[in-house]
């Protein structure tokens, strides 16, 4: 039996035609309407769902939040599927409260932190 959990990948939109139908059902639009969509936008949504793990489930909002977050500062870099929690600030700009990272990255970051700490002690 397959394991269930928060890390389960919900969908695998690898096939273009399948993903067109997925967006039709998701947004209640006709196939012709989705097919008229610019391909770059289509790719943004497809990429979101291809890499979705445990972030927010609203791809439209995640794309908007990530765009605002990245344009607010050149140093910022966030892809939509990393947006987990967000809030609206008094100036109506989005603030990302929690950024989803893969456990592997978290473990690697933790490991590198330990290595750096050990290096500091060895000096």
């Amino acid at each position, binding site marked *: 039996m397959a394991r269930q959990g928060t890390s389960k990948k919900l969908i695998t939109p690898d096939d273009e035609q399948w993903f067109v139908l997925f967006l039709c059902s998701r*947004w209640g639009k006709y196939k*012709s309407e989705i097919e008229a*969509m*610019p*391909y*770059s*936008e289509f790719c943004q949504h497809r990429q979101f769902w291809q890499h979705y793990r445990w972030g927010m489930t609203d791809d439209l909002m995640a794309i908007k939040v990530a765009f605002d977050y990245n344009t607010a500062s050149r140093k910022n870099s966030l*892809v939509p599927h990393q947006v987990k929690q967000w809030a609206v600030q008094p100036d109506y700009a989005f603030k990302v409260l929690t950024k989803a990272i*893969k456990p592997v990255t978290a473990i690697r970051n933790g490991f590198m932190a330990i290595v750096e700490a050990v290096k500091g002690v060895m000096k």
Partner: protein
Amino acid sequence: MIKFNPLKKVALPSNDNAFVIEPSTGLVTAFLQALKDFPKLKEDQIDARYFTGLRNLICLFDGDRPFLAQYANSLHQSDAAVWPLSFSETDTARQVLEAFDTPYLTRIIDTFVDSIGVTQTEELVELIRQVWPDREPVKN
């Protein structure tokens, strides 16, 4: 209410009325379907000449009219026996693309690629990159 952005459009420096226009999702779906039927180099690889050639053809527009239709029509006018297909001005790039079978499309791409120079091809590829970027590596 979901609204989509307009298709990205870049003018060709060499021609005021020629544009490279971002393809719609439907056009890319038809493009990928057409490529599936091309002879494979190995497993799922096709000759880059056909990928780039067809991508250039479907992204090029003369004003708002697809260049692919105009190119097919000009070939038809040059020799109707060799190039039997012709299209109306209202046909979309997708309709034109879906009207070709693979051998016909292969011949069109070969003729197109052979007729333009390396510099023009590079110019086109660079412009198309602005409206149809290569897939970016995914962060994290």
